[in-house]
Every structure is written in C-alpha cells, then in structure tokens.
C-alpha cells in the first residue's frame, strides 16, 4: 500500500523550523549592527572566535536546560553549579589544597554535578517542592559554598596546569585555528538534539511537559523523566564548568554569576515554552549564541568622541562608552521577559496577525480558544488533610495553628542564645540590635505574606529594595533633591517595579516566579547602573533620621530627652522598628479582619472559585504584588538612611530570608495561607538564626557565606515541612498506619 504512505505526506521536521531560521537572521542582523557601531571589535576575527568560544559553554548548559524546560520545570541552579565545579576542581587540583591529578578532580566535579542534579530532581518530583523554589535555593546554597570555599579570592594554578596539557588544551585553540570548546559544544548539541527529537527519552520528556497526568496514564515514569532532565542539566553545567576551568586554569568566586539568566533566556528565545511541552535543542543552541552576542554587544560599548574644554580651547578626545558590568543583567532580564511573552502573545493570541488585520481594516483572525473556564481539573483538595484545629484541645489547639512552629522556634532560638552567651544576650542593647536587624526582614516578610497568600511569589524583593535605595541615594547625592523629594522618588521607583511585576503576572499572565525573576535581574542591574562609579554617601542628616534611634531624633530636633526608663528606651529603639510595627498592625488588620484579606485568601486558595464568586482576582493579585514592592521599597529607603550610604549588595539574599520567614510562619508556597503574625514570627526565627550563627562563642564566629548556605537549608526544610507535615499530614497518616498494624496484629494474636 504505497499510496497510503504517500497520502501521509512529508513528516514534520524535528530538528529545525521557521523559528530557527528567524533566529539566524536576527543574529546576522545583530552582528552587522555590532560591526557598524564598533567595527574595531566586531570585525576582528578574534571577536568572532571569542563569541563562539563563550557561547559554546552557554550552549552546552542550554542543552540540559532545554530538557528541563520542556518538562515544565526550571533549573535556576546551573550558574552556581558551573561556578562550584571550578571551585571544587581547584580544591582537588591546586597545589595549595589537595594537590591531586586532573582525573580525580574531574571525577569529583562529575560527582558534584550528579549530586546536585539528583537533589534538584528528588526535591521537585518526589518531595513536590515547586521547581523554582527548590532550584533557587540550590542557587543560593551553591553561591554560598563558592564564596565560603574561596573566601572571595580567585584560585589560580597556571604552572601546574602545564603538566596536564591533554586536559587544559580543551580551552585552547587547536591546529585548525578554532577553540576546542566549540567542537565539544557542537558534539553535545548534536547529541542533545538527537536525543530530544529522535529518541523515546525525548518523546517522554515532551509528553511529561505537555500533560503530566496523561503521561502517567500512558505508563511513562514521569518522575524518572524529570529527575533525568535535572541530571542532564546539572551534568551539562558541570561540563561547561570544566571547560571554563580548562580555559582559565583557575577558579574565580564570580564564575557563573547570573549564568542561569543567560541560559534560561537562551532556551526560551530558542522556542521552548515556559509552560512546558515544547523545545528544540538546535533552537536553544542558536538562542545561546544570540544571547551571548547580545551580552557582548552590551558589554563592549561604543567608541565615542568627547569634547573637553581645557583653558578655553575645546579638544576632542577619543573615549569609550560602555555599560557598567552590573547593568548588563538588567537588559538580559528584559530579554528573558520579552522571550517568555513571545509564546502567549504571538503564537497563542496571534498578535501580529491581528494588528495586520486591524491595519487593513479587516476582521481579526479567529483566536485559538485556549482553556475555557471549568475545563481545568478540580482544585479543592479531597479528604486528605484532617482539620486538627477543630478536634484539638488546650496545647493541641496551639500546635494545630499553622504558625505554631515559628513561634516555638523563635522562643527556643532565643533561649539557645541565652545559653550560649548568658553574659550579654538578654541585655537591652543586644535585644534591640537584634530587633534592628529584624526590622528590614520583617517589613519584607509582611509584604511577601500578601503575595504568597494570594498564590503568587515575589523573587524580586531584595532587588527592589536595592533599586529603591539606590534611587533615593542618587536623588539625594547626584540630583541634589531634598530628603522628602528623595523619599518620593524612591517610593515612585519601587512602586513602578511592583506595578511592572503586577502587569507582567496579571495582564500578560506570566507565572509570577518568572516575571519577578526577570525583575530580580532588572532591578539589581538598574541599581548598580545608577550607582556605578559614584560614592553615594554623606547625605543630609535629615534624610538619615528615618534610620536612627528615637533618642538621636530627639537630639537632632533639640527636644528634651525623657527621663528614666523611657529615656533608656529612646536610646535603643529605632524609629524604623516603630514604623515596621505600625505597618504590621495595619497589614495584619487588613489581612485578618477585612474583606480584602478574605479575598486574598480566596484568590490564593482557588483562583477560579474566587473569580466565579465575583472577586476581581486580577486586581487582588496586582495589589498584593504592589504592596509587596512597597514594603521592599520602604525597607530600601530605611536601609540607606541607616547606613548613611548606599551599598550595592543591600538586600542580597533577602528574597530567600523573606520567603523562608513566610513559609516557616505558616504560609504555603501553593498559596491560600499565611498570616502577618506568622510572618513576623518567621522573620524572628530567621533573624535569630543569623544572630546566633554570628555570635562569638569562645572566639569562633561563622563567616557570612556559610550563614547563607544555612538559611537556604532552612528554606527548603520549611517548604518540605509545609508540604508534608502541614498539608499531607504524614505524621497523622503514619500514626493511623501504625494503629492499623497494631489492630491487625492484635486480631491475629486473638485468632491464633
């Protein structure tokens, strides 16, 4: 029956499509633009070589990431894995550390990659932690390890590397005149493309990402498929890290910083869908080259001619304008969001076709009807969680509260502090020093509570804190505004960031984690752009008052200091602590007692049910994201005032602390739960952990980097406890199971 097979027609192409052709065209265009602006760099053969060489590492990471994203997962830890591989290699290989050969070093790196991939995979599949939170924590833990192991210093071993030419030539140019890394990248891309497009492994990946339930029914081991993709991703990052090792003959603590951003942007630009089920390795490869090219164009800068006035004569000086290094992630962050928007707007809603029809005054083309109401599956959970709060009595009633853990932990940790340093812990100054550290985190946690209860997430709080702080510092110092205006500017900038988050999630329907991840890089990039090359310090003391102690403010205003206990209190209580308590009381009242709070819980609990009940869920989510950015902004303004200067690392790791605080305090990463009291207690736990780890006990203090690793562990533990103890109630199930076994045992004994 040859006619049958003819009737089938040509099979659709699996490797290559129109998208990839468009990418190639765009890339050619960009290179021409780059060559026009900066011919000295882009027209040199070295530049082309360097572009391909740097792109090859990102291309390899993009191969693994394609599998992960096609699975509807996300791996934010590739950048830190890439960096950590360099550090581990250095530790094993460097003469000043373990001084072993290349082979043990490579084995150690591969073991590390496998380990990270397995942890990611198991957390996401078996333990059901949302992918972005699991891998974001791995990112922070990895970065903490990199800084902790290197102590912030590069480790270089160029002399020993000469003895191992066979490995280190991987980073060199070969006899044919191009870098060996390019060859390796092409091999990995070809393999990846073949596996994803042609083999069962690839088909299983696409099926799992498209509809996991359907894949399970079809007998596909979806857990293993997803774990496999995480393994591929982190092994690809390991290979890329080894390539960097071969090229640099050393490791730097900055290695792989923000690499995850470039890799994810590359894969999405390459045509993969963040909603899963779609992705092509060749597209990701081209996306990686394109993203690295954009990165290069941004970093290289433009040669300009400056006119200087010297002694009344104007002299033309050749200069070079380039972006400060920290600003580039801002552009890549925008690029990521644009790429993520391509799919919903252009492919699903056919925006270009509609605009074209509108321009010709024709009726718009019909839309693909996507996901009509009531098609989605049931969301109201079944009889899994028993309602312990109703049956419990006395202390059990307290234990059944979702914030019980946080409150007990806070008390316990405080007592531990008292045990370790009885001489100093309970003194008023120390208590209020802790309270001062607590303020920033508590403000952020209160804002995050709203977002998390409404079922979203905000990963950008730390970055928005920095952006608002830098904007205020910039207006005070560079623009010369007065303190009140500077506060207004800071608030406006922070709220603009929040509004951007809100528009991206609500109007463009991006998942909140991806929208705020974009903002994470954009806000940090903008902040370091604003302050680049400026010493933003020495403001008017009037501004700094919002970060001072009450006593200082009274002194500044020439008011009399109260006597006795009130006076002592005024010397230790900061005005921002009072402000934070005020904000918390208002926020707690709104969330706990007003209909608006109920709307937030309804939206987070079951957004569709809330919408049917007439709640404007888009408005609720938008306001929550805006309020969260507002809280982060206030924290940023206070931070600048407290330190009397802006520090570019302000707010770093605060998103981690904030999310951990809310989850420990009874919030659920899936939305619908979380109280202000819980968040405050959770923030207290995190603050106390940090304070305890920083305590000088018998001359030993833990360095800051290791504390971040510790906090990352706490966040994962909190999410796991929320999913498995609070929601799935495994302890209850275990008790029931044991009771059942005991009963059968007794009946058997009776029968015997």
């Amino acid at each position, binding site marked *: 029956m040859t006619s049958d097979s003819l009737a089938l027609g040509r099979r659709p192409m699996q490797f290559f499509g129109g998208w990839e052709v468009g990418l190639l065209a765009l890339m050619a265009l960009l290179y021409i633009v780059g060559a026009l602006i900066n011919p000295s760099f882009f027209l040199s053969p070295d530049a082309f070589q360097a572009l391909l060489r740097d792109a090859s590492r990102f291309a390899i990471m993009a191969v693994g990431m394609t599998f992960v994203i096609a699975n509807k997962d996300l791996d934010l830890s590739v950048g830190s894995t890439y960096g950590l591989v360099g550090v581990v290699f250095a530790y094993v290989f460097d003469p000043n550390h373990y001084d072993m050969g290349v082979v043990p070093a490579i084995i150690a790196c591969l073991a590390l990659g496998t380990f990270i991939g397995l942890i990611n995979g198991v957390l996401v599949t078996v333990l059901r932690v949302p992918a972005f939170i699991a891998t974001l924590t791995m990112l922070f833990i990895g970065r903490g390890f990199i800084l902790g192991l290197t102590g912030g210093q590069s480790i270089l071993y160029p002399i020993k590397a000469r003895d191992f030419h066979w490995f280190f030539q991987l980073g060199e140019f070969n006899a044919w005149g191009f870098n060996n890394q390019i060859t390796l990248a092409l091999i990995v891309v070809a393999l990846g493309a073949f596996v994803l497009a042609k083999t069962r492994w690839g088909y299983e990946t696409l099926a799992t990402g498209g509809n996991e339930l359907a894949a399970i029914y079809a007998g596909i081991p979806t857990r293993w498929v997803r774990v496999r993709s995480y393994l591929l991703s982190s092994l690809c990052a390991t290979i890329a890290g080894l390539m960097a090792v071969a090229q640099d003959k050393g490791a730097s603590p900055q290695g792989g910083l923000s690499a995850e951003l470039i890799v994810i942007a590359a894969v999405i630009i390459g045509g993969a869908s963040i909603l899963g089920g779609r992705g092509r390795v060749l597209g990701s490869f081209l996306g990686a080259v394109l993203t690295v090219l954009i990165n290069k164009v941004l970093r290289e800068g433009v040669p300009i001619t400056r006119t200087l006035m010297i002694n009344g004569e104007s002299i033309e000086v050749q200069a070079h304008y380039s972006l400060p290094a920290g600003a580039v992630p801002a552009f890549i962050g925008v690029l990521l969001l644009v790429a993520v928007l391509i799919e919903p707007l252009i492919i699903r809603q056919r925006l270009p076709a509609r605009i074209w029809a509108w321009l010709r005054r024709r009726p718009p083309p019909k839309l693909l009807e996507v996901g009509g109401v009531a098609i989605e599956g049931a*969301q109201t959970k079944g009889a899994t*969680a028993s309602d312990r709060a109703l049956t419990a009595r006395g202390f059990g009633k307290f234990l059944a509260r979702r914030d019980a853990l946080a409150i007990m932990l806070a008390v316990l940790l405080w007592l531990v502090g008292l045990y370790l340093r009885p001489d100093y812990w309970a003194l008023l100054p120390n208590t209020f020093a802790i309270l001062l550290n607590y303020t920033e985190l508590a403000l952020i946690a209160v804002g995050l509570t709203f977002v998390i209860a409404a079922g979203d997430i905000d990963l950008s709080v730390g970055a928005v804190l920095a952006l608002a702080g830098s904007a205020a510092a910039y207006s005070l110092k560079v623009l010369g505004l007065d303190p009140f205006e500077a506060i207004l500017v800071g608030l406006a900038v922070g709220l603009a960031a929040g509004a951007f988050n809100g528009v991206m999630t609500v109007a463009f329907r991006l998942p909140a984690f991806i929208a705020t991840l974009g903002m994470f890089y954009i806000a940090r990039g903008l902040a370091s752009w604003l302050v680049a090359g400026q010493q933003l310090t020495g403001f008017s003391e009037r501004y700094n008052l919002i970060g001072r102690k009450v006593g200082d403010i009274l002194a500044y205003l020439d008011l009399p200091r109260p006597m006795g206990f009130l006076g002592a209190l005024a010397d230790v209580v900061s005005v921002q602590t009072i402000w934070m308590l005020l904000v918390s009381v208002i926020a707690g009242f709104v969330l706990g007692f007003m209909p608006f709070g109920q709307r937030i819980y309804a939206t987070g609990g079951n957004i569709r049910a809330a919408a049917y009940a007439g709640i404007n869920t888009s408005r609720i989510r938008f306001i929550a994201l805006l309020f969260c950015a507002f809280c982060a902004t206030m924290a940023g303004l206070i931070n600048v005032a407290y330190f009397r200067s802006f520090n570019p690392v302000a707010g770093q790791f605060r998103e981690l602390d904030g999310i951990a605080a809310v989850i420990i305090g009874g919030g659920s990463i899936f939305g619908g739960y979380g109280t202000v009291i819980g968040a405050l207690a959770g923030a207290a736990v995190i603050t106390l952990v940090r304070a305890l780890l920083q305590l000088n006990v018998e001359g030993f203090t833990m360095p800051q980097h290791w504390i971040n690793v510790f906090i990352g562990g706490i966040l994962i533990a909190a999410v796991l406890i929320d999913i498995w103890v609070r929601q799935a109630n495994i302890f209850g199930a275990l008790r029931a199971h044991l009771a059942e076994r005991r009963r059968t045992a007794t009946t058997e004994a009776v029968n015997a």
Partner: protein
Amino acid sequence: MPETSAVHPIVEMRHINKAFGAVQALNDVDLALYPGEVLGLVGDNSAGKSTLMKILTGAYQRDSGEIHVAGDEVHFSSPHESRDRGIEMIYQDFALCGNMDVGQNIFLGRWPRKGLIVDRRKMYSEADEVLQRLKVNVNSVYQKVESLSGGRQQSVAIARAISFDPRVIVLDEPTANLSVMATARLLETMLELKKHGVAQIIISHRLQDIFAVGDRVMVLKRGENVGDRYIKQTTEQEVLEIIVSGTPETRLSADEAPKRAA
C-alpha cells in the same frame, strides 16, 4: 400537557449557535425550563451540554440566538450577571476554596461586613441557617473545606448556591465524584429544592439519577437537539436509543411525543 405550556418558562433559549474555531459546538439549539421543573440534559461526550449551560450562565458568549429569562431578553457577559437574574451553576469540581472554612465558602466574595471588618458572627450564623434549610449535615461551619469529603464539599457548594435564593440551579455532573450514599443524599436535596420552587437543570451521564428526580429529559447530539421527553412518558431504554441514534429530523418535542405514540 397544555396546563404546563400555559405557564411562562423561566428560561427560554432559542436558536443558539456556537462554534469553537472550525467545530460547530451548538447548532440551532432550543431549550425551555419552567418554574419548579427538573430538567435532565443528556447526551454523549462532546454533545454540547456543558457549552449550552455555560452560554446560559454567561461563561461563554453565543454566536447567535436569543436567551430569555422570565420573559426578558438577556445578554450575560459573565456568570455574575446571570447570578443577578437568579441563575446559579454548581460546577463539577464545586469551585470552593479548600483553604477556607465552610462559612467563609458559603459567603465567598460577599462576606458580610460590620464597618471595615468581616462580621464573622453574622457569617457563621447565616451559613448555619442555610445548611439547616437544606437539611444537609456538615459537622461544623468552622471546618476547612479541604478536610471535607466529596459529598460534603458538594453540599457546601449547593448551600452556597441556595444562599443566593436562585430561581434556577444548573448542576454539572453532580454525581460524578460522589459515593452511592452521597448520591442518594444529593437526590433528596434536589427534591427538597424542587419543593421550594427552584427550577433545576442536571447535566448527567447517569440516566437513573435523572429518572429518579427529573420531570423532563432533553437529549443533545453533536450540538443539536435530537429529542425531548417527559420522564413519566418515557423509559431509560427510549432515551438511550435517542442518545445513540436520534437525529434532528426524528426529533419530537415532549408534548408531541405522546401524540405520535398514540
């Protein structure tokens, strides 16, 4: 049955058309529902039952056709507008917030207020009242909905619908997720509602449920109306035959069918 026809229908849908892309989901469908009547809407998968009901509640927009509620022509652009005219829909998955308790769910989105604060005392006492009126048994109005069984969750969904004092309730596959016991309880509840004069439309695959409580059954097939019978004058066998082999040409209205048979 001329005496029924003399009463004006509470809901009347005429010549409803709806296409999704190239697929004609509904083709010139008519539907009438009288006060206090229980109408079963049956048909194979993709017959257009749910689409028709979503058009009635305003979740989907019709391409053409008319809808009259109590004699007035209406254009619902969302389920909230149909709710204002006394039409409630209970979804297959109940559309409740599992993280909130029974009282909060019954008043979802319209929690009573005292000043700025949610009036919890009023909310719980009125929720309890509605549950009493419906004669359903939920342990406590303070219980979280996610800790309830499927049948109890449905009782909450129905209680929520009743609390709006609707004239029409649409139930989408109400027995699909229920145990046998819960199904029996649900059918009792439906009869209780009928006693209060509430018209109901049940979408269901289970003919025995429709025959237990229904007054009339309407059959859709591939988006077309292929038959309409009074429960008293038909059998499950006949309805099954219409579902499988009915055509618009052989279609008879409920009032014509007995005459043709006679």
